[in-house]
């Protein structure tokens, strides 16, 4: 259907629209018009992605600026879904407009997922694929080949050079699969095709880290202009991604490997000295001029992304004491040895970067400044030495990155040395955590660089948390409720077992046989009454493992086998994928199955359990983080001191967003239905922290149920859901046709008019002084509307 928001014509690829989709698009447009940031919480399964894409593509195509869209999502599955939706949208636009628009959209994922090289793609680890890919595609390798040396090149990559550099793939939308197919047909590398076509795309869909990883982000800024629209979809976990991108762990093992890497480097340098000393000299003179000049190689030749460097650092010359290759290597070795001695300590230490640096200086005379250049210097050296088996230097690179990070940031980071794996362990296994506490650091450049950043997800409550944690201001914050013609999902809090004993996953009672049995009975009872698929989420892997073993011992699993197949998320991703497929097959086949997985695990991100793939979702326990973790404690302290966020508020917010995320997995569209069970007595008090659309649907009477009551309620609900429900039953209520939309707009205009007139009347009536203001408001009535909107939003 086609409709207008203000003057913007929007082509929406369905004949109907959900009211919340319309509201979402209106707010999006306001944000874009205002060139500001926004936080929007849209109920799961109400077509967030398609609304977002329809509006932004319409915006791009209609206004002369043609603002580019950078759409970031968490996982490859979600990237692929967004690409598929975009592809369908563009097909619809072409049909409606009668011509094909000049439009390009590509997605990007790791080399591992996009590789076609027959042997490289077989590698199991992503890092090895990266390294082997570089050894086949780097510029110097090609130079060697041209000199007649016997080196191997990747034919898929080489073929790209035969094509026009701005037209490696034809215009249009390519899904990742589609790009692979195209690459296979035309014998060209999908990864580099996408990578090099990025500047020519109207829409780019890739994962967060391309924007959040500081070094890549730095490069991105060169490619993309300020008025790009940046969208972080499924952004409920964005703070953790930010933190992850700047945190690093160092173990004894990695230090050992780093030493080996440094020794290798030394050998290589000596070899090169005897054969090609000129190259090293060249590098040296370049480094005098500054790092930016040194960085002239093609960007994909980059060794590994480096942490953020302040602008002035890039212009500065590299400090003299690490400019020579051999000096730099011995410098690195010294630093590694220092770290090794630090690891020998047998008690836990946590210290700030400045204190660490002072200690380094006292012991080894290593200054802060050369440390800051470590990562860049190593990259440059590796490039000069033309190393091929780069994966050997990975641990060394980690140490260098650590050195750079620790010497660059004073605040928002902490070093924690844990000599033992756990409290009970007696054999030391030390780990040095360099942990980022402030999510704002990684994302700050994004907010500074781009004018419109949209943070959106199905679960962002409470909305004000995100601007606070990530340090930005919004022009729009909104949480939408869900209009429903029938109660299509049933959220319930189960606080007691059938024996009236309280259930909870709190540490004191979680392994209590009575609690475990009660949890088992919930799963068993629901497997008895629920058709097709059930998804069970546990708060952690450890608890899932122990509870499943206990259920087996109690014979609960044996009883569940009578109703459903049982599948479990495993440590191995491939094995889990297969389990997931089996689960879906059993759901389709009518056999029915239960999938047990973890609230923060692999399955909870990016995999949907819509329709018969999930008729019930059971959250066993509140998915709190491991509260004994020192890293978490440090972060909580930081949040309290810096952002005035109380510990318990944050912990509870964090647990509830993950719980809500799990619940939202079972819905897609309003014809879908599902039971949502929150099984823990602590949910009763926390339910207000659920997103609006879930907490509104929860009846007061269903917040303190025992297992048998919950089962009876769910049975009733499922029976109701089995009644025929036609699309026309919800017409005009939870779905709008074009006519409904028009009616709504008319009503809205009338309402606005009325409000304006009333405001005007009031102004006239109360006192004369307001007259001037009212008259002024009359002239800028649009602003008033916006203000009113903002009031509503708050």
């Amino acid at each position, binding site marked *: 259907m086609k409709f207008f928001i203000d003057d913007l014509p929007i082509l929406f690829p369905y004949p109907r629209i959900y009211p919340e989709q319309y509201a979402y698009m209106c707010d999006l447009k306001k944000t874009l018009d205002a060139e500001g940031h926004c936080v929007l919480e849209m109920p799961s399964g109400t077509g967030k992605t398609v609304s977002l894409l329809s509006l932004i593509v319409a915006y791009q195509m209609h206004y002369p600026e043609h603002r580019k869209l950078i759409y970031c999502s968490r996982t490859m599955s979600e990237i692929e879904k967004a690409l598929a939706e975009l592809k369908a949208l563009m097909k619809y636009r072409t049909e409606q407009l009668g011509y094909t628009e000049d439009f390009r959209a590509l997605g990007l994922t790791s080399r591992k997922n996009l590789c076609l090289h027959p042997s490289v793609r077989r590698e199991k680890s992503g890092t090895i694929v990266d390294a082997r890919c570089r050894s086949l595609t780097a510029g110097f390798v090609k130079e060697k080949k041209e000199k007649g040396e016997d080196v191997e090149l990747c034919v898929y990559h080489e073929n790209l050079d035969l094509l026009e550099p701005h037209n490696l793939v034809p215009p249009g939308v390519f899904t990742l699969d589609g790009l692979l197919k195209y690459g296979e047909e035309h014998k060209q590398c999908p990864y580099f095709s996408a990578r090099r076509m990025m500047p020519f795309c109207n829409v780019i869909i890739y994962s967060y880290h391309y924007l959040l990883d500081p070094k890549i982000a730095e490069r991105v800024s060169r490619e993309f202009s300020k008025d790009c629209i940046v969208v972080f979809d499924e952004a409920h976990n964005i703070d953790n991604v930010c933190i992850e991108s700047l945190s690093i762990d160092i173990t004894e093992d990695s230090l050992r490997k780093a030493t080996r890497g440094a020794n290798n480097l030394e050998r290589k340098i000596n070899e090169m000295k005897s054969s090609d000393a000129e190259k090293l000299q060249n590098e040296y003179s370049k480094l005098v001029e500054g790092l930016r000049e040194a960085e002239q190689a093609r960007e994909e030749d980059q060794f590994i992304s480096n942490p953020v460097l302040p602008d002035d650092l890039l212009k500065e010359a590299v400090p003299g004491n690490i400019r020579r290759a051999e000096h730099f290597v011995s410098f690195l070795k010294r630093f590694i040895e220092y770290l090794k001695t630090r690891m020998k300590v047998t008690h836990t230490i946590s210290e700030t970067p400045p204190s660490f640096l002072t200690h380094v200086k006292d012991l080894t005379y290593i200054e802060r400044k050369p440390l800051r250049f470590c990562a860049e210097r190593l990259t440059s050296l590796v490039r000069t030495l033309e190393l091929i088996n780069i994966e050997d230097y990975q641990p060394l690179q980690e140490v260098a990155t650590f050195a750079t990070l620790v010497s660059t940031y004073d605040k928002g980071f902490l070093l924690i040395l844990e000599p033992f794996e756990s409290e009970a362990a007696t054999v030391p296994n030390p780990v040095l955590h360099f942990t980022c506490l402030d999510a704002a650091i990684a994302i700050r450049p994004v907010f500074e660089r781009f004018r419109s950043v949209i943070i959106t997800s199905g679960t962002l409550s409470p909305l004000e948390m995100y601007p606070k944690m990530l340090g930005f201001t919004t022009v729009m914050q909104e949480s939408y409720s869900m209009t429903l013609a029938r109660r299509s999902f049933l959220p319930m809090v189960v606080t007691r077992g059938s024996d009236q004993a309280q259930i909870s996953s709190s540490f004191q009672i979680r392994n209590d046989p009575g609690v475990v049995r009660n949890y088992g009975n919930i799963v068993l009872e629901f497997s008895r009454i629920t058709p097709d698929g059930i998804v069970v989420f546990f708060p952690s892997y450890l608890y899932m493992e122990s509870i499943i073993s206990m259920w087996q011992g109690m014979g609960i699993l044996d009883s569940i086998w009578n109703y459903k197949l049982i599948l479990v998320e495993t440590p191995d991703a491939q094995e889990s994928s297969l389990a997931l497929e089996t689960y879906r097959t059993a759901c389709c086949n009518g056999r029915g199955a239960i999938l047990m997985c973890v609230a923060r695990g692999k399955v909870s991100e990016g995999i949907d359990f819509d329709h018969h793939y999930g008729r019930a979702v059971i959250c066993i326990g509140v998915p709190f*983080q491991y509260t004994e973790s020192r890293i978490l404690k440090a972060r909580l302290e930081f949040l309290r001191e810096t952002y005035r966020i109380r510990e318990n508020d944050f912990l509870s917010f964090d647990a509830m967003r993950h719980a809500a995320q799990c619940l939202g997995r079972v819905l897609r569209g309003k014809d879908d239905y599902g039971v949502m069970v929150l099984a823990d007595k602590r949910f009763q008090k926390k339910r207000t922290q659920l997103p609006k659309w879930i907490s509104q649907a929860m009846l007061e009477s269903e917040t303190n149920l025992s297992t048998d009551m919950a089962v009876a309620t769910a049975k009733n609900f499922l029976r109701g859901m089995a009644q025929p429900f036609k699309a026309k039953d919800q017409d005009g209520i939870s779905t709008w046709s074009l006519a409904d939309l028009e009616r709504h707009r008319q009503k809205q205009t009338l309402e606005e008019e009325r409000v304006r007139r009333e405001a005007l009347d009031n102004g006239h009536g109360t006192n004369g002084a307001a007259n001037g203001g009212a008259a002024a408001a009359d002239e800028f009535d649009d602003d008033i509307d916006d203000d009113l909107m903002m009031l509503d939003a708050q």
Partner: protein
Amino acid sequence: MAPPSGSAAYKKKDGTLTMSQDCQSISWIPAAGGATGTITLPVAQITNLQQTPASNPKVMLKIFVLPPNAPENSPEQYVFNFTAGTNARTEADAIKDALSAAIQAAKTAQAAPTPPPAPATGEGMSTAMAFASAVSSKSTWDDDKRLKGDVELQQSLLKSDPNLQRMFMESLHTKPDTLTAGQFMSQFWSTRIHLLRAHAIERSQTRGSYNVLSTLKPRVEDNVTKLNISKEQIQLIFNQHPLVRRVYDENVPKLSEAQFWSRFFQSRLFKKLRGERLSETDATDAILDKYLQADEHGNLPRDAHVPNFLDLEGNEVNNSQRRGNRPDLDMRWSAPDKVPIIRTLNSLSEKIMANVAAADGDPHAPAGMDEDTYNEIQLRDLLGDEEANLVPLNIRDQSRFFSAQTKDSEDEQNRLFAQQDPEKILSDLRREIDQNLPDDGTAPLGRLVEPDEFGDDEKKNNQQPGSRASLQKSSGQILDAIRDRRAQTDVSSTTGTYGLSSSLYDRLTLTHATTTEFLHQFWQAFLSGNPDRAGELSSLVDSLHRAMERIKAVTQDAEAERQVEVDRRKRHAREVLEATGKKPRLNLTSIQGGEKAVHQLMGPTIQALETAQAKYKAALAEEMKEASGQ
């Protein structure tokens, strides 16, 4: 050419390795000990051949054999050492060449479904295998000819559907003699292919298997732990746990059957298969514990393509340069042997679903998203109601079929109405209202209901509302309705059989069914336009004649039955008269059934028969005329 053979040693025993005459197997016969130690390896099961290089003085041939139902990765190996001295190399080469040619042939033959050779273990094919082979030769129910020819299937369908069976038997008995049984069968089934197909599919559907180990629960009786296990359960255990089959195979002659199972259910192996953690206190078993190390899980398809929407592995490597602190203690996995249950659950579920076509497309299909995958992410309720996909069925000139009924006076009237021009009626009506109704809105009610029909010559119909005649008419209508109602709610034994006795009614339905059957066949043959079927047609017309006669016979019987009832009532009335001197009112019309009922029921059929015969005659006459004209 004689099959190649050579003297070779197996396990240090001398013997002869010979290719069989039909190249289907290779066997080794020991020189000493006669045929007892003979090894026969079917070519179809050989997965690999290895031979020592020509430079090596030792000449050995290694044959990898994968018995059916054995796990994919555990082929058995046989090493034959050729002992013919200088001749060894040539002998070995000859055998190897012949063998590889035979393997090649067997492999290409396997592309076309050939039943796998019966497994040597004698346990019979697993249901999984049976199902798989049923799937591979899926044409069973796609091929109409095979369905028609499958007598066994037809018998089973008849057995499951008594109505159909009765109709079949009746038709078979009354079929024209000119029709052979075979012809009749093929005709009968040709119109019921869909039933056969549905039945074939239904039969091939089997109940899915279940996790058998979880259902076995020992119970304690008189201080003795007992456990019953059925043959099916054993078979399921063997299917779900090939390891148990192996253990059973290798040990059962030594142990007795009962011994084996009782030891098995108490063993660590059983616990392990159930996914339970082993503890030190578990009883040990000298024989069964040997198998504890065997890996049951090694057989998973490893390089399956997973759609991107579900690809957890792809998600994990989405960011290859991932940093970050390691996960918290509770988010780390334990070693798999600590929690064996998790892998057991998955592999069991996978085994149970192994025979079902995957929901997410063929896992081995090449990468690429198909339409279905995309459809999955669409919001279905926003798409609106799907338009019903109907095929309009046009029947031209329907009145022809029902022309016989238009004799009815009501229909006459309808026809009269149908002939009138609605527009004219409407304008007439409007004119009348204008004329008859005064402008002030008052009007005599009677004139509205039964307006005077000026100029209408049917003055006799001109009745006033409230007149005696119309009152009578309306009360008659009401009584009719009540009578109808009563007839419908009447619970006498003859309800639903229209006054016929149930045996007669049954006969009638059967007659009806067979007649319809013959009509069906007649029209098929008649409309086929196939001159070869002319002979068949005439015999069918004969059977139509006979069908008519059968109906008549039933009619007569029904009438006779009714007459009996009539006589009985009359006799009863007479008796009453004699006894009481009062003459009871005899209502003979209330006796239903008889000829009238049969005609009422069979009317359309009789008409259809007549039409068919008339058509045939007309066509025959035409044909004759043409034939004589030539």
